[in-house]
């Protein structure tokens, strides 16, 4: 029977007693699957140092935001359908105390901040005609929202923001 991940990891770190280590070694001689795992671990740990030499592109929060931005734009451009974003995931990774997510909609940045699970503020970079609907399709806001003037609204669960022809549905999981 193969060893679990806790034990194989302990073997790599030489944290097992001599009897346990002997058992793992005997097993490795017969089990290509575990041999592969151990080799993988050693290779990955040695490659890690390569990444210490290179800067990573973005901080974790910004990475997620960038991904959302890219995916949102991609989907909006390619399939012209509302793009559903699991808001909880986006918000979970924020470094700031205030939870916020920024997306691209109709080629402008839209900043959505969350004060509580039901309370949101939405700020446009340029200002535009905008519609915000809740999940029952009830209009929460319709009209021209000026640049940098936050719109504060309450919504439970999903809500949809439309700027001209572009829409995004933000989902609370």
């Amino acid at each position, binding site marked *: 029977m193969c060893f679990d*991940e*806790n034990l*194989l*990891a*302990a073997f*790599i*770190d*030489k*944290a097992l007693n001599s009897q346990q280590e002997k058992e793992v*070694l*005997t097993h*490795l*001689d017969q089990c*290509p699957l575990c*041999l*592969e*795992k*151990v*080799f*993988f*671990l*050693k*290779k*990955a*740990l*040695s*490659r*890690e*140092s*390569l*990444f*210490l030499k*290179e*800067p*990573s*592109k*973005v*901080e*974790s*929060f*910004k*990475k*997620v*935001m*960038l*991904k959302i*931005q*890219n*995916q949102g734009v991609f989907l909006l451009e390619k399939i012209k359908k509302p793009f559903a974003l699991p808001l909880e*995931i986006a918000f*979970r*990774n924020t*470094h700031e105390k205030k939870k*916020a997510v*920024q997306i691209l909609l109709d080629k402008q*940045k839209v*900043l959505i901040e969350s004060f509580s699970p039901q309370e949101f503020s939405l700020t446009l970079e340029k200002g535009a005609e905008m519609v915000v609907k809740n999940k029952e399709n009830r209009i929460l806001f319709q009209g021209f929202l000026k640049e940098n003037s936050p719109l504060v609204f309450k919504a439970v669960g999903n809500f949809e923001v439309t700027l001209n022809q572009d829409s995004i549905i933000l989902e609370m999981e």
Partner: protein
Amino acid sequence: MLFETLQVKFKPMQVEDKEIKQWIVTFQETNQGFDKILEALADLIYQFPAIAFEVYHHDIKGDFYLYVSERLEKILKSYQPLEKAKFKTFFYLTLRRHYFNFIKARKPKIEEVPLEEEILSAPEEKQRVKELEKISLLFASLPPKYQLILKLRCPDFLAPEDFLALGKEFNQKPSTFIQNIDVILEEAAKNHPQLALVSPRTIAHFLGVKASLVSKWLFNIKEMAQNQLGASYVF
């Protein structure tokens, strides 16, 4: 501001092993502190496809980050801390399993795009493909021992099944080689990003043979390359 790209150094983990283990134990017992654990592991999760599988595409790395962050609570609950074993070692193994599941789940979304003909028909590309074909043929024609020596010289090509072959070829148990492979991997990583070659001396030390013997084998391979391909290759 939010989209500003910051040039920060990749930190595999932003806290000491002892500290993160303590956080995890607290989380296992009280369900508290998940956010700070995720934050500490964020870089490692995001870079994992690149570190482990040489997958550098930001979309894949981003998707994998989201995939793991949704499952991290369960991963942390399954961890059994041991004083001498690092959390990161366990975490890498767990990430490996999750990466395979992630790829499986993602596969239907990947569309097959036919290679554009003009890319393949570019003269320099044709030449490169020809060169690669020649090298593959040469490699396949080498005796198993020489194939293994070349793979140890350039361990990027080393595969898990090679340990079984090494065991047979050099009359040792495969576990002996897997236990000592660090010397080879460390030297290759040190020489990166230049040609990541391992010295004959290190290969000899790893195999338990004389360095001059390894040099002789490499010389023979070089001669075979010259005879078969009419070209000189760096081995």
